[in-house]
């Protein structure tokens, strides 16, 4: 097995933290969200406004797509989600637009920018759930929580099991050194993806190693000097990044992988937010990284 011990360990920890005893609960009674707030629902929600792309996709995956009555304009997955009316932005959202969808549950991404909207919705009698969904380990925890809230824990459990199997499978037959990968999100100032993002886990699962894996945040501004010193083997960028002009910039040419145009390009929204398509992302990335294995 060439699983990253760290990622595997975290997923296992998340599984343990939720505990097997919860999986049979049929209401959300007693459940708390990722900021420790109790979810005030007496019955499974029928009208949900989802304020982050990851949550929207997860609700559809959990078979609750028909209960989603509002989404952000960034929620494009799965394609069926585009038929749901948009309420605008997901951070500091428009409370009036949300209330107009007459929701009984609003799912927020965890951010200080959302505090005011959460208070207003709660005082208007609408239940909220705030989810910190950044990593695959979070996906396991949040899936379990949402399964419980939706009253369908069995489905959630089987999804989680399926994900584990899928993520374990492709990592078996690799040899050689794991390529060291730079995940470059922006060039000026240089913003890299850190270990706090699911992308770092995906790189590990695909047999690579994020050179900024030790940063516990999803992304960070760093110096080109730091990148050069860590000397990645390959630079992973999203499709559409102007790699050609990047490789001509004198300050970036100090980084060997950029000077030698060792770019790996990945495409697809499975790289934009954590989802159960992570296994597909891992497979795609594993194929891409295979070419850069030393």
């Amino acid at each position, binding site marked *: 097995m060439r699983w990253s011990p760290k990622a595997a360990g975290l997923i296992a920890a998340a599984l343990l933290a939720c505990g097997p005893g919860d999986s049979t609960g049929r209401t959300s009674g007693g459940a708390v969200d990722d900021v420790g707030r109790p979810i005030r629902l007496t019955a499974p929600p029928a009208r949900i406004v989802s304020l982050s792309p990851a949550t929207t996709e997860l609700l559809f995956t959990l078979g609750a797509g028909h209960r989603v009555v509002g989404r952000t304009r960034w929620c494009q997955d799965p394609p069926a989600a585009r038929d749901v009316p948009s309420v605008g932005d997901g951070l500091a959202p428009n409370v009036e637009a949300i209330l107009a969808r007459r929701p009984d549950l609003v799912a927020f991404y965890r951010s200080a920018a959302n505090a005011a909207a959460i208070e207003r919705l709660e005082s208007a009698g609408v239940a909220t759930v705030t989810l910190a969904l950044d990593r695959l380990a979070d996906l396991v925890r949040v899936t379990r929580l949402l399964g419980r809230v939706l009253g369908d824990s069995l489905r959630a459990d089987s999804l989680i099991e399926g994900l584990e199997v899928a993520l374990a499978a492709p990592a078996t037959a690799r040899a050689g050194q794991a390529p060291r990968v730079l995940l470059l999100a*922006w060039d*000026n100032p240089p913003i890299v993806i850190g270990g706090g993002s699911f992308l770092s886990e995906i790189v590990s699962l695909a047999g690579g190693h994020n050179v900024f894996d030790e940063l516990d945040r999803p992304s960070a501004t760093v*110096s080109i*000097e*730091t990148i050069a010193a860590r*000397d990645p083997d390959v630079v992973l960028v999203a499709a559409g990044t*102007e790699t050609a002009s990047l490789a001509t910039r004198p*300050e970036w040419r100090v980084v060997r992988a950029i000077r030698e145009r060792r770019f790996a390009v990945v495409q697809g929204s499975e790289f934009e937010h954590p989802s159960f398509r992570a296994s597909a992302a891992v497979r795609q990335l594993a194929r891409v990284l295979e070419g850069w294995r030393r």
Partner: protein
Amino acid sequence: MIRWLVLAAAALVALVAAVAVGPARFPLVDVWRAVLGDGEPTTVAIVRDLRAPRALLAFCVGGSLAVTGASLQALVRNPLADPYLLGLSGGAGVGAVAAIALRLGGVWGVPIAATVGALVAIAVVYRLAVVTGSVLDTKVLLLGGVVVGAFAIAAMGAIMAVSPAPQVRNALLWILGSFSGSSWQAVVLFGAYAVLPLGALYSLSRPLDLLSLGEDPARFLGADVERLKRVLYFGASLLTAAAVSVSGIIGFVGLVVPHAVRIVWGHIHHALLPAAFVLGGTLMVVADGLARTAFAPVELPVGVVTALIGVPVFVLLVRRWQG
């Protein structure tokens, strides 16, 4: 004389330290060998192609902003003037955000758009402040700067509301200021460009002294006041726009450094401007060094560091001035 020597020594120490220290830690021996072009290639490249041009660019930009601030303080006869007073930062911000929202790609897309935005703001504010013929009203100049700045903030908000959020957030990070785009190319370009406005401002140091008395007294002491105001305005603005294009918007250097220099060197621009250039450059090199290393490997926006240093220093200076 001693104060000039102290200043020069501080500048030298800051520059040497900026080349010697960084988020990638090397023994000083390796740095010295790298300066001479010897040693492990990545170390040599980091020292010679990243740290050295970055330190020099930070020095030139910091110096230019300080000179601009000092000149504008004399132009509007207000000690609170800074390089971004005249709506320039707002224009640059709109340009940068618009470039990203419209996906004007290329590595130079954002800097060029920011410079264009700054130039538009400069032109609009100038047009507002020109009354009857070619007379430049500095009070209207101030007012125009505030109004254009407010409009720019609104425009940025509007663009951000309808654009992909992460990209615009990255644009804002760029606006907050960073020298991560530094290269010898950028040093040479900025240096070649800045020499002219810097020289123009310095050659006006005597008329600047006179202008601080008021426009009438300056005129009767031989200053061609209208021409002086125009050259000052465009020299200072173009210099700031160039600084924005290589490093975003970095506050407080242009405000705090001239004041610190005024306390030590007085208000005669002949000494004030060169001292402001060296101290501004030194402060910027130190601030960028802290931005790179304080929380390494994470880098802070350099504008955050200059504000964190600048605001307490400014409070102390103001208290001292009052006392």
